[in-house]
């Protein structure tokens, strides 16, 4: 019994891949510079693999073998707003389900911005990633297209120090206004104390 293969929906990477491929073709024909990343490990691990994975060292090159969802990489992050408009208006990705970022490592010079889309009409999901340099972490805000990006961008902004240009209300949302540092960055150092309260 396999709940990933058996279903018709997002769970199978096949359908995510299908949606991503269609979207990719449309984006490419619209002139955007995009690239599709597809996992090369099988969706279901063959027997015994989990035990093998336990032994698997981290230094095995992560670039080559990976599992999970395929995603589209948007090479030119300046075109994000246009891509989102294209996705919503032309392709029917009505909902931006999630908008967040990640910091691959402390040494890495860039952050990854990740956007999860959901289409209620296509019953499909899509994931788009952009890269944001840590030097000048500035991205266009997609709030004007997807209203829901409002709070997500505020959260990503305070956690990663990304500036979303064009955001209507760029205050901190979960953290206090005077919080220093960006907690979800890998080089974040936990403060010794906050307003006289010891944190360690």
């Amino acid at each position, binding site marked *: 019994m396999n*709940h990933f293969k058996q279903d018709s929906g997002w*769970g199978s990477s096949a359908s995510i891949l299908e949606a991503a491929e269609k979207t990719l073709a449309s984006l490419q024909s619209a002139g955007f510079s995009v690239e599709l990343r597809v996992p090369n490990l099988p969706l279901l691990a063959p027997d015994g693999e989990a035990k093998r994975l336990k032994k698997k060292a981290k230094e095995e090159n992560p670039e080559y073998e990976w599992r999970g969802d395929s995603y589209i990489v948007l090479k030119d992050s300046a075109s994000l707003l246009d891509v989102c408009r294209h996705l919503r208006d032309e392709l029917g990705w009505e909902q931006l*389900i999630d908008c*967040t970022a990640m910091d691959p490592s402390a040494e890495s010079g860039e952050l990854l911005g990740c956007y999860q889309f959901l289409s209620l009409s296509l019953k499909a999901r899509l994931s788009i990633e952009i890269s944001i340099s840590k030097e000048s972490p500035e991205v266009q805000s997609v709030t004007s297209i997807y209203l829901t990006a409002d709070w997500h961008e505020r959260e990503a902004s305070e956690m990663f120090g990304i500036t979303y240009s064009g955001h209507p209300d760029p205050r901190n*949302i979960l953290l206090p206004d005077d919080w220093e540092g960006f907690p979800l960055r890998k080089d974040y150092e936990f403060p010794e104390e906050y307003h006289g309260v010891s944190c360690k």
Partner: protein
Amino acid sequence: MQVTGSERIVELDVRTQDVDINMGPQHPATHGVLRVLLRADGEILTGAQSHLGYLHRCAEKIGENVDWVQYLPYTDRYDYLSAMNNNLGYSLAVEKLLGQDAPERAQYLRIILVELNRIASHLVAVGTYGLDVGAFTPFFYALREREMLLEIFERICGARLTYTFIRPGGVMNDAPEGWFDQVAAFTEVFDQKWPDYWNLLVENKIFIERTANVGVLSEEDAIAWGATGPMLRGSGVDWDIRRDQPYLLYGDLDFDVIVGKGYRGSVGDCFDRNYVRMFEMVQSNRIVRQCLDRIREGEVQNEEVGMSFACPPGRSYVGIENPRGELGHWLVSDGGKIAQRCRVRAPSFVNLAVVEHMLPGCMLADAAAIIGSVDIVIGETDR
């Protein structure tokens, strides 16, 4: 009395000012430590702004510092009213990275537990919504049935609120003897008791007056604001992840997706959101019954997945239908024993965002009714 806000000249050179009121962080109607700053012209609200973060517990940061399985107890604590669902969402995301699957019996057990948890969560939602509009008694009726559910959960996993029971690769243990009979008994009792809530609360004339046509969220707005779950369905959007993108074995099960129809007012009002929750409980009960019929003996844990493992590198986003909407986990692994990024897409957080745009123009009493109808859990908005 300090009065702030915009000044207006009404008539005869009488100057009036709007009052800024802090609803919360300690307020009975905000369901926790949410603070909504209201601006009111008498009883009518002219502005609202939500302030979050009072219960921020750094769940995402913790996710980057503990093992894959060690993170599981933290998932219990975002939406503490539906911890089973949270466990499930995280477990599915990890399983997707691992490429492992849960045995069939574990999947049916998961569906039973998740649906029972949905009933428990909706019971609290409907009951506390009664409190928000001033009806005390339905809350106690709801808690009476929820107590039976908590006993069921306690019996199978030893905890009443934070279960950590569903985990990557299956569930923690098999059901104890007689447990399925207890669940079956509950499904019978629940069908008998459900009309009580309907008659006492939802069909109450005053309740209808308080909720119908209040806090109307149109279909377009609901989609644009990323609303999910009962909030989206209440606005008339026919979307349920369990049916449209099935996970576990939901594809085989027979249930209806409840959509708000503007039964007493217009589509997308507080009544409709509550209506969706009321009937979803019935559907969940139906699903539990089907699972009780279908469940077979077998393993409940995939032996391949242990307690400590490394995930292959990759990204997995799994969104499941939580009682409050889509709970998404976006996990990024670099091949290690610890997540590189553990993103939680919390339904309450997103659903709450639209509230500050729904409040202006309503009355002060509607603020409680609207916030209650969104059914937020602060543990989840703040994580």
